[in-house]
């Protein structure tokens, strides 16, 4: 602990925790106080995330020992490129969802703001911690808050979807606990770095049990990431949640992907000794099946929220398949894809609610039926002279532009960052000219392209239907508070496109560090060793 900057690493957990606690005390009566606290907290988080992102881009990673306990006994927070990236995504998405909620959603039920702060705290903690049981605790903080947020606004659809969501995640938490205790029983440690170091010396007869424990834990992560066939809960829950809640929930599935990236690459990466590559085939196959299922779900979606929920599945599947290939360059591209898709999905969830506002209930289902059977409505429209040449309302045009940007980002079409990210994933797969390309690479490339096509078809169909064939019956009344966050998220995607070079360099460096966890081990264990020397 040299200077005060070292303590910045713990701040992303502490700031929302204090803000949330103060909000609980203030209660819903003093709304201005609660909102001010929330604004201070979310803006501070963005500032912290930018500072930490800047500090992370060095070879040496930072270790923060909570309570200054030696790394073997206490819990460490680890701040490296990957966690800094995830913190930045949480902070930006948090600010956007917070501002969007101020327009009206935060008054739809009690305690929106405290739950939101605890959600941010859980997410930040899960991305920072270097200890498996602490990861479980932050998962629970994050999930408990997300249960409240998913149910925010109440209503039959939310309660029904929320019930499934809670039960499935409780079972996942139990699996996590079983995995953690098996790992502890065999290895005697819960610190990820220490575990990775001990993995090499585990006796042969214990290795299978340890791997089984980690696999059980992996199932808990994969349920969070909504891999097929563990992800049927996701589209329904996200579709039912209120717009700002859905926007922040959309990064929750990425926590599962993050945990797989962190734990799997640390323990079963190329340096994993006898266990290297354990489960790679399952990640790859699961990812591909999730892409297939997600693409089908996107095409079959009859409403905008379902479409967005299914896109989350496609993005999870893409990330898991890319990780399963086990190549650092592909993982680097996948990280860029992760950043781009998190921002785009957040914007899409916020946008959907504004689009739905001007439409009749059930308009989506009617549109699909009309396409299939035809109702003769088109002729009526043509005969109506008033309908021809009606000015396209400016607000609808802005919303349409935002929708088109989301479609380009999610489908991975040029010129936005979605395309660059998919390209960055595919380029190393196809390798240098002349080198033989393994079949798995071809399958992944095909899956990436086909899922992009499916997303594009579905979003085009929905876009045409929403904006052209059945324009909103009334121009949606949209306040600046609701449109500005969408603009912020999409502007960041554009920034990611313009600064794709530095961004990709950063992601590749992060991926290299994940695939060669020597520095991570030395960082955490070195902190323990140096302490042993100074305090004998």
């Amino acid at each position, binding site marked *: 602990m040299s200077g005060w900057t070292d303590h910045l690493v713990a701040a992303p957990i502490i700031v929302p925790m204090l803000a949330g606690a103060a909000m609980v005390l203030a209660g819903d009566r003093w709304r201005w106080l609660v909102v001010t606290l929330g604004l201070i907290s979310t803006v501070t988080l963005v500032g912290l995330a930018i500072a930490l992102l800047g500090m992370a881009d060095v070879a040496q990673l930072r270790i923060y020992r909570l309570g200054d306990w030696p790394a073997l006994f206490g819990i460490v927070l680890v701040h490296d490129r990957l966690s800094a990236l995830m913190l930045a995504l949480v902070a930006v998405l948090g600010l956007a969802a917070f501002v969007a909620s101020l327009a009206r959603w935060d008054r739809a039920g009690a305690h929106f703001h405290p739950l939101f702060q605890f959600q941010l705290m859980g997410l930040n903690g899960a991305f920072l911690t270097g200890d498996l*049981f602490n990861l479980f*605790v932050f998962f*629970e903080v994050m*999930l*408990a808050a997300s*249960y409240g947020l998913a*149910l925010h606004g*109440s*209503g*039959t659809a939310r*309660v*029904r979807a*929320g*019930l*499934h969501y*809670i*039960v499935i995640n*409780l*079972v996942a*938490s*139990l699996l996590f*606990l*079983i995995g*953690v*205790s*098996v790992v*502890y*029983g065999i290895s005697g440690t*819960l610190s990820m770095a220490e575990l990775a170091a001990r993995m090499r010396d585990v006796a042969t007869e214990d290795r299978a049990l340890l791997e089984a424990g980690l696999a059980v834990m992996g199932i808990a992560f994969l349920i969070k990431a909504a891999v097929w066939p563990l992800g049927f809960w996701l589209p329904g829950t996200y579709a039912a949640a209120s717009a700002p809640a859905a926007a922040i929930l959309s990064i929750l599935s990425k926590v599962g992907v993050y945990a797989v990236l962190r734990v799997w690459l640390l323990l079963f990466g190329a340096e994993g000794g006898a266990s290297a590559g354990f489960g790679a085939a399952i990640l790859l196959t699961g990812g591909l099946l999730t892409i297939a299922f997600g693409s089908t779900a996107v095409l079959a979606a009859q409403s905008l929220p379902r479409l967005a929920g299914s896109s989350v599945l496609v993005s999870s599947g893409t990330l898991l398949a890319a990780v399963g290939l086990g190549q650092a360059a592909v993982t680097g591209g996948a990280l860029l894809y992760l950043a781009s898709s998190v921002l785009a999905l957040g914007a899409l969830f916020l946008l959907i609610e504004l689009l739905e506002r001007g439409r009749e209930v059930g308009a989506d289902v009617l549109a699909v039926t009309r396409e299939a059977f035809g109702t003769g409505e088109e002729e009526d429209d043509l005969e109506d002279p008033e309908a021809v040449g009606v000015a396209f309302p400016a607000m609808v045009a802005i919303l349409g532009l935002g929708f088109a940007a989301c479609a380009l980002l999610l489908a991975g079409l040029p010129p936005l960052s979605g395309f660059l990210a998919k390209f960055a994933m595919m380029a190393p797969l196809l390798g240098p000219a002349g080198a033989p390309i393994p079949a798995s690479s071809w399958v992944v490339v095909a899956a990436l392209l086909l899922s992009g096509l499916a997303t594009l078809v579905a979003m085009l169909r929905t876009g045409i239907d929403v904006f052209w064939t059945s324009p909103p019956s009334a121009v949606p009344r949209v306040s600046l508070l609701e449109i500005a966050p969408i603009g912020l998220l999409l502007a960041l995607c554009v920034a990611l496109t313009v600064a794709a070079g530095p961004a990709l360099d950063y992601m590749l460096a992060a991926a290299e560090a994940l695939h060669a966890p020597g520095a991570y081990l030395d960082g955490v264990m070195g902190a323990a060793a140096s302490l042993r020397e100074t305090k004998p």
Partner: protein
Amino acid sequence: MELVVSLAIGVLAGSGVWLLLRPRTFQVIIGLSLLSYAVNLFIFSTGGLRTGAAAILEKGQEGSLGQFADPLPQALVLTAIVIGFATTALLLVVLLAARGLTGTDHVDGRDRGR
């Protein structure tokens, strides 16, 4: 001792899974509780099982690390119990809300054949 504990965990987990797959919300929540008992016992047993041991020390015995059960799983199980208790209570509230809103205690919010 090991056999009794493993049988207990097995029976609890088995009944928990069975109840979890039933269609009524009440059965689901009891199933989840049984399953979490099984998991808690399981975590507890990773600290080592001993029969007839003194709670802390025998009279006149020198204390050494070898005589104590590993305290970490006990700390873990406490955390797990607290978290499990809180989330189960939350689920109970959601069950009641679902019962009130949908008029049925089926997990899907509607009974087959209605």
